[in-house]
């Protein structure tokens, strides 16, 4: 995750990321357990660029093709953590939004992301409604 964080988005040929975007979103949805609608295309694009820049292109391509090997597990784990933890994914994504849109909060529907008011004042005195558990 640190590697993803440290690498700035490079000006790659757009095709490199674009061609991988759809399968990466599908992969990310599967790995994270979320519907593909939650896998934001802009963030996905930024993550792909960062991975390629870090030299993870071949491993990424194996994952995307369904030909993953044991040695690719750490990369899969890093992708999951990046989505859940809201790690940066390239330029142009404000840090505050990354934090609030981190998937971990969407996994925890019973709470609001830190810094956001609860849905109704004082609702913390009651269990969350069933649909949010």
């Amino acid at each position, binding site marked *: 995750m640190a590697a993803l964080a440290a690498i700035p988005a490079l000006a790659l040929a757009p095709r490199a990321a674009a061609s991988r975007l759809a399968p990466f979103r599908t992969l990310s949805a599967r790995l994270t357990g979320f519907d593909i609608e939650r896998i934001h295309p802009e963030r996905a694009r930024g993550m792909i660029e960062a991975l390629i820049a870090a030299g993870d292109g071949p491993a990424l391509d194996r994952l995307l093709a369904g030909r993953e090997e044991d040695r690719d597990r750490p990369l899969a784990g890093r992708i*999951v953590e990046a989505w859940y933890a809201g790690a940066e994914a390239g330029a142009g994504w404000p840090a505050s939004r990354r934090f609030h849109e981190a998937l971990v909060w969407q996994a925890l529907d019973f709470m609001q992301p830190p810094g956001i008011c609860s849905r109704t004042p004082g609702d913390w*005195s009651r269990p*969350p409604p069933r649909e949010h558990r």
Partner: protein
Amino acid sequence: MTAIDADVVIVGSGFAGALIADRLARSGIRTAVLESGGSVDRGDAFRTYLGAAVKTPESPYPRPPDADFPVSDDSDHYYRQSGPDPFRSTYLKAVGGTSWHWLGTAVRFLPSDFRMRSLYGRGVDWPLGYDELEPFYVEAERELGVAGDPADDLGSPRSAPFPMPPVATTWLDGVFARALAGTPWRVAATPQARNSLAREGRPACCGSSTCIPICPIAAKYDATVHLRRARAAGAALHERTTATRIETDAGGLVSGIRWRRPDGERGIARGRIHVLAANAVETPRLLLDSVSERYPNGIGNASDQVGRHLMDHPVQLSWALAGEPVWPYRGPISTSGIENLRDGGFRRRRSAFRIQIANDGWNWPTGGPMSLVSGLVREGLTGTALRQEIARQSARHIQLASLTEQLPDPDNRVVLDAADRDPHGVPLPRIRYRVGAYSRAGLDAAREVHDGIFARLEASGIRHADDFLGAGHIMGTTRMGDDPRRSVVDRNLRSHDHPNLYLVGAGAFPTAATANPTLTVAALALRAAPAIVASLNGVTGQR
């Protein structure tokens, strides 16, 4: 050399400095506040927090080299640690001081807390008692805006109601209360300086849950409330203005306080009265550094007590998975505690403690749900199984923090580092600190109580931090007393050595008790303000 002139010069704009500035300015007294740090913009600070990689209490706030301060994730930054134990409590330099990131807990001392020596043969007695301070607790609760449960005085008798009804306790609090019914451990709503209704232009708490490090909507009290009022009443606030030396005249009065700004500008602030409110590390640091031929031990230090008796509330942190979902991470960080273990004959042998029940799950010990993700991914979970397990576990995160009392020890102290200085040339603070057997026994006892509580909650995965943590409560280094040989200030917080110098804040505490210090800091400051006004009329020394 620029001169700042006022009737009263105050160094530091945290809780104590802001309350006194407000009282003085509204009495028509010309007041100047010097603050080393800068202004904080709430929105900017909040956004900084959201983007911070590590969400420490100080993470939202600027920390320029000329107004540097200790940080939570590196105990060797700024502090120079002599040990044997690391001093882990931190603070801010900013307009409003550390009030920006305090939790908001506003608990009074117990009557016994003022008489540790007489009752339990430990520590010292305060020069004043609970009854004498009680009216000022009432004022402090009104000024800070404390919400509390009228049905329970938590052992501190009250002459007036709380200004506001209690902040709604959480479902989690109720789970604890029901599980602990019939045990010696009584769950009670925590009085806190947090609006439970809209009051005095600030909104009610909406459950943002980021009390530490910042309340995004200012429902939690911070000292900018009183700084705004003070300025509206004519007080001057000089930010990015660091006090570097105290000057005295031939008669032993403080004649002024030298200051510096980051652009190199230097000056002196002259008052008839001077108040140091820079906290229990920075106030002694300034006093000790103001050495002269006449005062080789620094200002206000004929007793050799300045910087000594440093105390914190060493914390025992414990966390676990509750047996049933408790739905944490909602509401303020803490709305209930266990307050009935704070007094008794056992204080002869070991420290008492107050237990803070956390609503924010495992944030303090582990970083919360984010860290859960890492662990589960490492175990090989992905996909729906991962997502469901994160939710299943997080819903059961419980945590207890017990604040133990540390006894005053003259060898626990703030001194000046022999080698390292800040950019203004003032030596950095060197801390000598030992938690001590009395508190260690309290930490041990707290751990056992935590185990008992967790058992009642059918908890699993119980963990205890293997070492103490700091509570951020820095106390004792300019302590009050009637005897000038054994204390630094008198019962009105006036220096024994210099009649026009007041030293306010938690440095004045002769003992630490188990209560979060802010409410008592506020009560003492509000009690000192009229004494300051009175001594203005009596001080004849000229600048």
